[in-house]
């Protein structure tokens, strides 16, 4: 192949990567919602989960004629832009969506870190931004007036886990905690330490691992020598898959193994196969919940059924929270009766609604109110909720 031809092919291929950056057309009777999404790069899976749910919501809303704004029905349009899991690009794209595409409202991308970046831009321009996947309070304590998030604070998770596990298995005395040096995983590790101590457990190992680590053998070997009854590791899917596998290889086990938030994602279970069994975790939502609501989905079951038709397996909390975020925005627009950003922002702040995903009521910092978040365990390859009692489908199984 001659060089120009090859270069042409390669540049075409790379161009296709950016093909989702198509310009959005503007129409006056449409509500434009900007969505910076990680459709390629490290968080591509997570970004696509948000994308699917946004589309499901938009389809239902538009099928019903749109959102009623001051007596007039207006269709919605989601303007998706791939920010390639690049923090700097997320910032640029948020700016572009606001200044060039003239979006009325914004959604935030996946994760606490990237949400913070987009929220900073939105705040500057006074555009309401709704975040579906940010649960660290450090994102919401920046004094932002236009940021609202549908996940509940993660504070309650470790407290409930410590209480529940020590009740079911009173012989648990020692816990080992290993956390990733990153916004969300690190806060989950710190909270676990505090909760464990309050529950009377002895913390025999408490370390963090850096983002640039390739291997967990050393940390795990040290954990093994401290003989814990409970091993708790926080991180992202690839860390947790590796850590669980290395534990199996190095014959390190404990009656309870918790990984935050690995088992909340199907990828974790698929990648690990049988060794995923027994791992406990927490999630923000489980599809066995039974909420009834007057939103476009109507109930958790209806959302679940609709989601299954997408051919992407069972929905997880990211899918649910992303759809709930847009429902919340829809309700706020309807209540405000206008697309005025300040008025919609005020309506969002006053939100107190029930959705298929659960109740949504924002605290003064813009974060959804605390509620009892599901504690789950992988049992025979399936995610089984153990807590709270309303969605409980099984009991804690001890790893032999």
């Amino acid at each position, binding site marked *: 192949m001659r*060089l120009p031809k090859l270069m042409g092919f390669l540049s075409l*291929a790379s161009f296709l990567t950016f093909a989702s950056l198509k310009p959005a057309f503007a129409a006056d009777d449409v509500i434009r919602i900007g969505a910076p999404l990680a459709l390629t790069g*490290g968080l591509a899976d997570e970004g696509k989960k948000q994308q699917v749910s946004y589309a499901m919501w938009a389809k239902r809303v538009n099928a019903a004629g749109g959102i009623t704004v001051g007596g007039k029905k207006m269709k919605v349009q989601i303007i998706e832009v791939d920010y*390639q899991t690049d923090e700097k690009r997320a910032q640029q794209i948020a700016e572009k969506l606001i200044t060039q595409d003239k979006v009325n409202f914004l959604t935030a991308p996946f994760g606490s870190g990237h949400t913070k970046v987009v929220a900073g831009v939105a705040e500057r321009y006074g555009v309401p931004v709704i975040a579906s996947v940010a649960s660290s309070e450090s994102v919401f304590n920046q004094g932002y007036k236009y940021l609202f998030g549908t996940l509940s604070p993660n504070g309650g998770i470790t407290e409930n886990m410590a209480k529940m596990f020590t009740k079911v298995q009173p012989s648990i005395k020692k816990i080992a905690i290993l956390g990733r040096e990153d916004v969300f995983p690190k806060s989950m590790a710190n909270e676990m330490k505090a909760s464990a101590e309050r529950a009377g457990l002895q913390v025999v190992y408490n370390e963090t691992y*850096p983002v640039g680590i390739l291997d967990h053998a*050393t940390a795990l070997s040290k954990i093994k*020598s401290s003989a814990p009854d409970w091993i708790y590791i926080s991180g992202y899917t*690839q860390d947790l898959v590796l850590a669980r*596998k290395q534990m199996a*290889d190095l014959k390190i086990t404990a009656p309870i193994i918790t990984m935050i938030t690995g088992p909340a994602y199907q990828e974790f279970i698929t990648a690990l196969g049988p060794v995923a069994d027994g791992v406990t975790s927490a999630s923000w939502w489980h599809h066995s919940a039974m909420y009834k609501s007057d939103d476009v989905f109507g109930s958790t079951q209806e959302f679940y059924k609709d989601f299954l038709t997408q051919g992407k397996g069972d929905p997880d909390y990211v899918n649910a929270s992303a759809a709930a975020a847009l429902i919340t925005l829809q309700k706020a627009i309807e209540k405000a009766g206008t697309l005025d950003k300040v008025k919609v922002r005020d309506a969002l702040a006053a939100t107190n609604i029930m959705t298929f995903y659960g109740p949504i009521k924002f605290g003064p910092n813009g974060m959804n109110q605390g509620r009892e978040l599901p504690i789950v365990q992988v049992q025979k390859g399936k995610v089984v909720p153990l807590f709270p009692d309303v969605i409980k489908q099984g009991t804690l199984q001890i790893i032999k």
Partner: protein
Amino acid sequence: MDTYIQVLTNGLMLGALYACIAVGFSLVWGVLNIINMMHGSLIILGGYLTYFAWLHLKINPLFMLLIVPPLLFLLGYLLQFVMINRVVARPVLTTLTLTFGLDMILYNLMNVVFEATPRRITMDIGSVSFMDVVLPGDRLLAMVLALALTGILYGVMRTSRTGRAIVAVRMDRDAAALMGIRINRVYAVTFAISAMMAGACGVLMAVTFPVTTNITGLLLGKAFVVCVLGGLGSVPGALIGGLALGLIESLSGNWWGPQNAVLTGSVLMIVLLMTRPTGLLGKAGYE
């Protein structure tokens, strides 16, 4: 005591893999004076080929050691012959920019085609243990194969005509050209060997680690540190550098926690750069 033996074996097993990651990178840097930014992505490409062959065609990952490296050899040869050779004599920044660009293309293509989901070959082959020390079977195998591959490469470099030509070009390009060595071909073969080693390493990594594009930069970073520790452009240098880094990370992780393991490796790299810039085994010639 058992903990220490375990920590040391962990370090050696990781170190062998580091050596395998770095040996091809070191070769290209040493001989061609090219910092190949694609190296991490080439390893992951090898990993993906292995994974999908296992998933869809049920091919044993180790069998892919016979298929993936030749494929990447070909890819490497073409890349060097068609593109990199055009700028190979330019300052190092030019070639670095080119390989950086190629890396972005390859990385994004893999993201589009394979997606970044961490995938894993669920072929657990158990562990070997004596006393309280456990050696995971797949890592042990990866270590042995990594050492064997590095050894074979060393042998080829020392004994074959191509190997001697590569060494000659590394020592003095102009003199080698005057002796009738076709420089461009040697460059292409060197780059191809480097890509082949990356492919082999990818196969071994796919057996032991989740395959994901998220870690391409991480692998490249490890290759850098290993090269500086061991010395550029020499197979034994990469081996010593890799094993040293594995042991350093393992021991410091045990003493000061994993959060300081990577830091310790980097600090040692800086110290070595100041005191012994050629690395532990580096010297002006090649072998």
